[in-house]
């Protein structure tokens, strides 16, 4: 009995799904998905994308005449040759060798960086506390004076792994709480001159897409300017916007919107 019921269900489903293929169905499955790499924060970096284009005939010309007969212009149907173009984007790769810097506490409590790393004019160390004593074993806590390296970008203990700055509604002002994050990224970029950051601004879904694109751009530029002030040269950063197009929270309420009003810091080659 159960078997009969399920075969009927199966038959019904199969019947429902049997369709004459539409023009669109033919196109639907072409094209490969973008390969996406995840950064630690869940922000997406896009690799080579494949975009397909197709031809369509222009508006069909038709002749009109009064009721006396007239000769017509030829009309043509919509013959559509398929043309596909591929767009690829090569992403620069960057070696991810991560020299570990050794830190030795000096007598007055300050830490000193190991000899083989570049000295890029790091800022004064934060006040030493009892934790620096633990530096002698291979702890993952970055030391205040340590020259930030590519490995630190993925270190969840390092402020460099914080990539997302949230914003208030209709605002591009950077909240005070993000100051240490900005300082860490600025320090990293000054220490690694070939590092290039993409500052990706976003907006929540409300309102016009183009206006939201410009709002997101403002948020990215806000971070750009803050980094400038911390000494990062223009050439090492680009501010772009994804507007409302790539939300991380898909709800339609303030809880989702506040997550989406953000700037993400991404590094090329990650």
């Amino acid at each position, binding site marked *: 009995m159960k078997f009969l019921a*399920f075969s009927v269900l199966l038959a019904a489903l199969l019947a429902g799904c049997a369709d004459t293929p*539409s023009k669109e169905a033919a196109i639907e499955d072409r094209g490969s*998905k973008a390969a996406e790499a995840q950064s630690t924060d869940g922000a997406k970096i896009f690799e080579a994308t494949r975009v397909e284009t*197709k*031809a369509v005939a222009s508006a069909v010309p038709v002749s009109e005449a009064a009721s006396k007969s007239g000769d017509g*212009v*030829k009309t043509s149907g919509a013959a559509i040759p398929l043309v596909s173009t591929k767009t690829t984007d090569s992403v620069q790769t960057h070696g991810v060798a991560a020299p570990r810097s050794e830190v030795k506490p000096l007598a007055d409590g300050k830490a000193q960086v190991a000899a083989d790393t570049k000295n890029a004019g790091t800022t004064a160390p934060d006040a030493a506390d009892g934790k620096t004593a633990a530096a002698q074993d291979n702890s993952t806590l970055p030391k205040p004076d340590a020259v930030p390296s590519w490995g630190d970008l993925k270190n969840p203990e390092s402020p460099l792994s914080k990539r997302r700055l949230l914003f208030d509604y209709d605002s591009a002002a950077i909240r005070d709480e993000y100051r240490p994050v900005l300082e860490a990224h600025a320090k990293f970029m000054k220490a690694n001159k070939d590092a290039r950051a993409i500052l990706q601004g976003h907006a929540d879904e409300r*309102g016009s897409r183009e206006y939201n694109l410009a709002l997101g751009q403002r948020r990215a530029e806000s971070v750009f300017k803050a980094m400038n002030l911390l000494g990062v040269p223009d050439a090492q950063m680009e501010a772009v916007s994804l507007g409302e197009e790539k939300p991380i929270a898909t709800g339609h309420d303030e809880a989702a919107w506040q997550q989406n009003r953000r700037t993400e810091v991404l590094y090329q080659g990650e």
Partner: protein
Amino acid sequence: MLFRLFLPLLFCLLILPAKAVMTIEIVGGAANRIPVAILPFSIAVAPGMPGGLLNPAEVVAGDLGRSGYFRMLDTTDVAVPPAEPQALQLPPWKSRGADAVVIGQIRPQGADRIEVRFWLYDAVRQTQLTALVYTTTPEGLRTVAHRIADAVHQALLGEPGAYGGRIAYILKRNGRYELQVADADSQNAVTVTASPEPLISPAWSPDGRRLAYVSFEDKKPVVYVQNLADGSRRAVAKFRGSNSAPAWSRDGRRLAVALSKDETSQIYLLDLLTGEATRFTRGGALDTEPVFSPDGQWLYFTSDRGGSPQIYRASLATGTVNRVTFEGNYNVTPAISPDGRTLAFVHRRDGRFHIAALDLNSHQMQVLTDTLHDESPSFAANGRLLLYATLVNDRGVLATVSVDGKVKQRLSQSGDLREPAWGP
């Protein structure tokens, strides 16, 4: 045991993509609809006549009925469609309540062409209003039917119809973004670009042969121009930062665009031949969404230079800027009617986004829609109808509303529809 065998199979069937059919429903109509009888066209049976032709009466009745201005009478009981005016009896149709009657015929002409004629009658005064003849191929029959609907609309209402045009829009489904071009009645949709990354802001060139749009495939917004005839395209604005909001000049040689390459989002005029971008707005406020006026004198755009997003217009000759919208604190996405007299835009009121229209002479503003998340208004070529995008039950749909706010339609499809643009 067999249940366990079948269950995974059942789930596989459930995720097959739904057949993509666009449906149109009328949501609001004019108070007094003109009753019209569209009789089936008489299709000649003759040697050399192609078979399987669609009856234009169906398309004409569909167009006029959906417009909200006409009420279609039932004509399914017409046994033998009149092929000539002499065969038509008007008084019975007048008693059935028709104000107007349409009859037509299709005859072969030459090897692979057909001739389509129609006659429109005033059933009350028993006079002929319009009669036209078209020559086409079987494939062009649908286009002819839309032209007939335009002609009937014009004759009965005194203004042109909008049935023969095309629309472009973005369809998001199955994780992909497709730029589609379809007839104004949503038939014959063709995907001209498909991408795994978002596409926004399609804009028709004035000659209808090209589409500009913004693509995120390069990891940031870039403006592309694509030829519809062969699908070829190139990136025309890929400057540092973001590139978006393309709008065509009337001669099709320039695009106004929003670029952030120098100083936040500003408007530039891009020469499509040389690739040079000349800065147009100054001051460093947020400027975007440029659109040229039909007479080529003005550039309308959105700006927050006054503290909130409003619509401004700048003289292309002198550069002088005036503010255009004053009501409320969020007015964006300008669209200008082909006669240059009406500005349509998105207006936020009580946190909701509606399509509104502003008479540029009287400065009277009217909110046209009661949908809540409206975007992207676009005028039909007759200037009487607006196409826009909105959300219904969380899904993106397209909708039309007449410029007086009275007549409404909704177009939906499986997937999310957004960013519509009515072709020239």
